[in-house]
């Protein structure tokens, strides 16, 4: 593995950190100045579902991953979903999902 330039890492981290902080706080400051109105933003109710789904799908099935990994990820996701729907503890759901994923990969490799 090639070592990453520390200067590049610090510059990138600072830029991402400050940029993200401004995203997080911008709305509060704009709203306090009366420039934005939350009540008009009804469409936002679809945001959490869309963002989470769009983040989970590519993370579960990474690009160019072998079929075994895809099957393992889908099995892990199914286990987690079933556990949550059966009102099990979320911790148990995540642990069981991870175990299923690890076991399938270990079995086929």
């Amino acid at each position, binding site marked *: 593995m090639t070592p990453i330039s520390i200067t590049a890492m610090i510059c990138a*981290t600072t830029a991402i950190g400050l940029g993200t902080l401004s995203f997080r706080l911008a709305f509060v400051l704009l709203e306090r100045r009366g420039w934005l109105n939350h009540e008009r933003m009804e469409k936002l109710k679809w945001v*959490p*579902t869309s963002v989470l789904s769009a*983040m989970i799908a590519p993370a579960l099935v990474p690009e160019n991953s072998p079929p075994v990994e895809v099957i393992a990820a889908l099995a892990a996701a199914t286990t987690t979903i079933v556990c949550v729907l059966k009102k099990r503890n979320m911790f148990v759901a*995540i642990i069981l999902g991870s175990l299923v994923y690890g076991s399938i990969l270990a079995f086929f490799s």
Partner: protein
Amino acid sequence: MTRGSFKRGLLAGSPFAPAIFSASILFAVSGAALGLPTWSLLLSSLLINTGTAQFMSVELLNQGANWVLVAVACLLVNLRFAIYSMHLTPITRQAPLFQRLLFLAFLTDEAYAMTGTRLSDSVPKQEIFSWASGILIATFLPWQLGTLTGALLGRYLPRWDLSITIPLTLLTCLILLLNQRDKILVACVAATAALLARGLPFHLGLPTAVGLGIATGSFLEYLARRRKQTPKLMIQEDLEGGLP
């Protein structure tokens, strides 16, 4: 801030802690393996505080990408925090300004998803804010501690692939949100779009998928509103037609 609600929030967020802790260790171990010093990894966790952007920045820098491009790509992915901040306004608005800014500055995906399920609760918003703050602490601290543990003890830890834990953690949050048929459809559209659009440059796949999800939700809402209005109009026409 009510102490009881805060404690309940801590308990509600605690199931996520082990998964977040292990994923954070993975980030620190992979960063340390690429020659990054401990302090730079801690700085990354403290300043950025989002797993997706942190993993992405290390991966892109490792591929030799310019830091400006890395920052732009990660900021596009982190744009969602502006929307999170807007969406949680009904809950955060009640809190004193400093607490509100602190809460939003360290907000995590998990805390947002859990808080989002209680937006329409009839409980006083101040209590929900305290509850959400508990979840935030339960999800923020493990990430910081995991980075420290991974950076310091990474070389002694067994090499397990823990990358699956974060998507599974987010999946548990998502399932809680899917309480309507329309939301399930929106989730399917956004997930499919994210898979199809991941080849787009600068990681534009995520914003595109989110946009399509919101558009689908808005369209479904429009159809539902029209369906409600149509029978009313028909009854009115029938009544008018029946008048002498």
